[in-house]
């Protein structure tokens, strides 16, 4: 578990929520603010309402398909880069491109390494995503677009293995499985930190913003939307040039 995540969890447990939510919470009126003690275990409901019914284990199993970074939620199974390539070319490449480069405006899935500081950052599961579990979870639930939940777990392992290979993270002979899943680390895992706007952007909490003669010179126009002219026309519909 990441240290920062642990810290966030502890802060939550204590009902502190600092610094991410600190200000918002302080500003609540007392009536809206739940007592800190309820952040964890909820006091048993005063009235058991007899609304709803117990969920059956089979029902939970049918819907509970989410997968976490620690692998919790992964079904048993495995799939190789080679198997993944066949599945990908048949069911993904039409939109995402043969090499994950994205066909037309469909999302790019590979490449972009080292681009995050550039003028044109390319955020892919290789260059940007912090956790492998996100791709397994997302592909299994939502892809191929318009036919979600049609891949088997083995097919999903295979296609994820192939995407790892396209992103130069594993070799061609790699096989991804529930067992080795947690051992695959993505390059940008350390690239994220929790919202720190309330400290990093403290200057935006100004006491008395200037009202008169706030700029030495009259303001000058430095950029114009019309120069770019990408706004759709109101009657003829969007014009794409």
């Amino acid at each position, binding site marked *: 578990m990441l240290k920062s995540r642990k810290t966030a969890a502890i802060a939550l447990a204590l009902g502190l929520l600092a610094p991410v939510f600190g200000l918002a919470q302080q500003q609540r009126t007392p009536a809206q603010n739940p007592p800190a003690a309820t952040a964890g275990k909820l006091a048993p409901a005063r009235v058991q309402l007899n609304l709803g019914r117990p969920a059956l284990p089979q029902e939970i199993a049918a819907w509970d398909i989410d997968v976490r970074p620690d692998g919790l939620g992964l079904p048993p199974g495995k799939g190789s880069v080679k198997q993944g390539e066949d599945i990908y070319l048949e069911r993904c490449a039409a939109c995402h491109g043969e090499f994950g480069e994205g066909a037309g405006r469909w999302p790019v899935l590979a490449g972009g390494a080292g681009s995050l500081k550039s003028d044109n950052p390319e955020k892919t599961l290789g260059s940007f995503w912090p956790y492998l579990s996100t791709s397994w979870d997302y592909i299994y639930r939502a892809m191929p677009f318009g036919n*979600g939940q049609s891949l088997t777990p083995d097919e999903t392992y295979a296609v994820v293995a192939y995407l790892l290979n396209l992103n130069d993270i594993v070799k061609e002979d790699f096989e991804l499985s529930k067992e080795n899943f947690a051992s695959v680390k993505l390059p940008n895992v350390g690239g*994220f930190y929790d919202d720190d706007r309330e400290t990093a952007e403290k200057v935006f909490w100004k006491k008395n913003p200037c009202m008169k003669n706030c700029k030495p010179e009259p303001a000058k126009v430095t950029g*114009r939307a019309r120069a770019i002219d990408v706004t759709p026309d109101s009657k003829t519909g969007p014009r794409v040039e």
Partner: protein
Amino acid sequence: MVDRAETPLNRRRFLSAAGLAGAGLATGALPSRAAEPDAAITDVQDWNRYLGEGVQAHPYGSPSKYEKNVVRRDVEWLTASRESSVNFTPLHALDGNVTPSGLAFERHHGGIADIDPAKHRLMIHGLVDKPLVFTMDDLKRFPGRVHKLYFLECAANSGMEWRGAQLNGCQFTHGMIHNVWYTGVSLRSLLEQAGVKTNAKWLLAEGGDASMMTRSIPLQKALDDCIIAWGMNGEALRPEQGYPVRLVVPGWEGNMWIKWLRRLELGDEPWQAREETSKYTDLLADGRSRRFTYIMDAKSVVTNPSPQAPLLHKGPNVLSGIAWSGRGRIERVDVSLDGGRNWRTARLEGPVLSRSMTRFYVDFDWDGRELLVQSRAMDETGYVQPTKNELRAVRGVNSIYHNNGVQTWFVHKNGETENVEIS
């Protein structure tokens, strides 16, 4: 006379529609003195004489045909398919602080789910004492029903504008927001029935659409003020807003307000779903990214005048706009007509509610000179809406999300209004 609803977006159309191509400032105003009697008065109009349609001509009514241009619009080149796309609220044509249901912007990731409410189920499971399943009827029998007015803003609202002025119209620059009344029950009251275990810290909310959207929500927020809502502006949620039931997460980015809500799972860690890693993380200039940037900071925009609603008359005019903050109530809105050199405080009109859109007005006389119109919101925490350059200084231009910088509209001498950046 210029039909405001017909007002086009680009220069060519502006000039022809407003009849300004050759002429000076054409106006829809009545001349200050009439030479001829006005036919609108002296003629008997059809609607003065012949019977109109009877009751039930429109069992579910719609706006006047003269308002047909007041609609949501999209920018087709933004996305590859309309099933995973966005359209925009026509803010320039609206007033007050409630967004009409049919004009509230849409954002879908797998199209609009067509759900039979009789077959809809909401499940709560994970770190709870009693996993439960609810029908829509169960939800509507819960005690403690609430009605709340909240804004929902997509974190990517104004996201096209980080590198400079791009889209000519507040519908496109700021239209990923709406403010509607929600009817439902507190999420807390549902969780109380299931009994949350002590080690639960996070809640996963999942939609039942083809994208099966998921977001991790801190349990504290879930217990604080989230709502399970089936009503919108007094009627059922619209399909495109999550019918039959959605999550309401006041003040936080719109993506978390899961539509077509079908599942709530309690856990001890965030799930790191695609929409909280690949998307909705804010890439900064140093290549690192902020995550879990849930709160929508204070923001405002002048909706009139704006590129789609230019100034048509000299003399008295009403400048109008909206302000909102995810941290609480709007405290004050200042307006500048000279690009931020001098400011005056606007009048807030109508209810000023926490995490709800607030309407502001400045009545002013326009003498036909060029204006650089801006608004600056302040909320009850003392946060002051930054300029775009102040934001860029902290965040760079790659973050896509959470662009709440001050917007500038350039009003030309002929009233035409344009999205600009200024020094």
